[in-house]
């Protein structure tokens, strides 16, 4: 009896402890993290312009309007140009540098590792402002250099073109690739060196070693990197776009889903339409990550 009571009160204490450690966090998380997400989906089914006057349920009309909005396909196209451009750029560069810094016994590799990560600690705002200056048509770095080399005035508007979205790739890669380099280095370093030694004895070339050992055994890191790129790009491309091309460049040339959401909501006051774009971002990033996950699994099997 006494024992049971004590056990009961200990249990009680334990539960109180657990709750006291979980609830504050959970509460904040539910109110400020989860609730807005739900509400966002909810809002996308309404015709609501921020005030309280008009708040009508319109079902999927916002999504229908999206179908007829010529800008939406452009934003999706641009987001995927960024996603795939970044995947290719990031992976080529980071695999190359990671291999160079781990497998080739290069002098100063610690120094390089430290340096390469620097852009990652800078705010994307800083990166955007810097690169906007690089691209400035008249006084910027790029055109000034071209003019100086060719001796003729070169004034191409890198950020004022139909295809300016591609001009946003170099800054994005410059700013983020440090992370995947570090990740790939960690992955390669985790590969048992005995494997390489055995390959060496068999007389395998560096390229063969890369193909047969490095690539398959660091595949997890590659996959992680790719998924990380997809998620951060689809939800974060807004920043580099608005900092470098303000409202989406020439005729929405660089408009992405995030910036278009922002513009509709906070410039035109079309909040429910903006929410619908938010749902679009959610669905697309969900589909993309799942599809890429599947795709890379299959390739993984083929490789090994």
């Amino acid at each position, binding site marked *: 009896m006494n024992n049971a009571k004590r056990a009961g009160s200990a249990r009680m*204490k334990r539960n109180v402890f*657990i709750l006291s*450690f*979980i609830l*504050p*966090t959970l509460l*904040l*998380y539910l*109110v*400020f*993290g989860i*609730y*807005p*997400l739900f*509400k*966002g*989906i909810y809002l996308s089914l309404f015709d609501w312009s921020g005030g309280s006057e008009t708040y009508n349920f319109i079902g999927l009309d916002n999504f229908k309007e999206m179908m007829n909005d010529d800008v939406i396909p452009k934003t999706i196209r641009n987001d995927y140009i960024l996603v795939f451009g970044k995947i290719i750029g990031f992976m080529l*560069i980071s695999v*190359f*540098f990671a291999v*160079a*810094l781990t497998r*080739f*016994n*290069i002098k100063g590799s610690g120094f*390089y*590792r*430290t*340096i*390469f*990560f*620097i*852009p990652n*600690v*800078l*705010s994307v*705002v*800083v990166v955007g*402002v*810097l690169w906007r200056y690089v691209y400035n048509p008249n*006084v910027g*770095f790029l055109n*000034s*250099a071209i*003019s100086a080399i060719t001796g003729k005035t070169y004034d191409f508007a890198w950020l004022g073109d139909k295809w300016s979205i591609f001009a946003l790739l170099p800054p994005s890669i*410059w700013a983020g690739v440090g992370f995947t380099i*570090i*990740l790939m280095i960690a992955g390669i370093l985790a590969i048992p060196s005995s494997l390489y030694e055995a390959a060496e004895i068999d007389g395998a070339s560096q390229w063969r070693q890369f193909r047969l050992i490095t690539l398959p055994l660091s595949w997890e890191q590659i996959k*992680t990197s790719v998924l990380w790129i997809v998620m951060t790009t689809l939800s974060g491309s*807004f*920043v580099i776009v608005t*900092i470098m091309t303000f409202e989406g460049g020439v005729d929405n040339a660089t408009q992405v889903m995030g910036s278009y*959401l922002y513009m509709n*909501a*906070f410039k035109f006051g079309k*909040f429910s339409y*903006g929410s619908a774009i*938010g749902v679009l*971002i*959610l669905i697309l990033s969900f589909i993309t990550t799942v599809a890429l996950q599947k795709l890379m699994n299959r390739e993984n099997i083929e490789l090994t």
Partner: protein
Amino acid sequence: MKRRTKFSGSRWLMQSSLFLWALGVLYPVVWTVLSALKDNPQFLLGRPWNLPDLPLIWSNFSYVWEKYSFGHYFVNSLIITIVSTLLGALLSATTAYVIARYAFRGSGLLYYSYLSYMMIPAFLGMIPLFFLMDDLYLTNRALGLIIIYTVTAVPFAVFVLVGFFKQLPKELEESAAIDGASHYGTFFRIMLPLVKPGLVSVSIITVLNIWNEYIFALVLVNDPTKYTIPVAIAVMQSEMQYRTEWGPLFAALLVSMGPVLLFYMIFQRKITGGITAGAVKG
């Protein structure tokens, strides 16, 4: 002893591309410093690689710090970063500890719902969040940003710290229980100090994220006295359509870059280690 590779073409290619990339990373930083010391005519020359003319325009810094209130924004950013990092560490360490060391119903659900939050674009909730914060009188206030930054810092921190707590030996709690320590005492006096490395790594990354954050700060703050540095820089860049001030703009960039670069130099190992900690283990 590593194998000696011949001095081959591919090696040379690697050496030089490493060097070039390092240059490409460092040069913009150095260049920003130099450019912050120039005046307008020097910019309009179209020779951005030139060294600044003497005398150097040091006044760009005081101009930005005082007239553009970057001193003020610096304090805003600093307070918000420190408070939300501490708060985030506390809130995530407590949750992570319970998830890792106590068996209870819903613990798995809790863990994975935090994780999946990392995969949902925050943008989806931006509009409702704005109105929610406004209803709670949290827009245009540091507290609002502190809350939202704390919340966004939690999932990653929980993820990493659960891993750290799980590695601690079971005997620790048992001996603590024998000594009559309460649950709270065990956590604060024994367990928490043992995961300090994890806590530090996580906090460092949180600091970087918050210091650099732009989207939430843009949406939730539109009172110029409450800006954080990234928002202030973005505003300053767009104000340059009404007056050209290249030198001060780059001086403002340095206000943002300086602290993080310093921070990075001090904690370099912990930063890169912490970032890969979660990703590589999996």
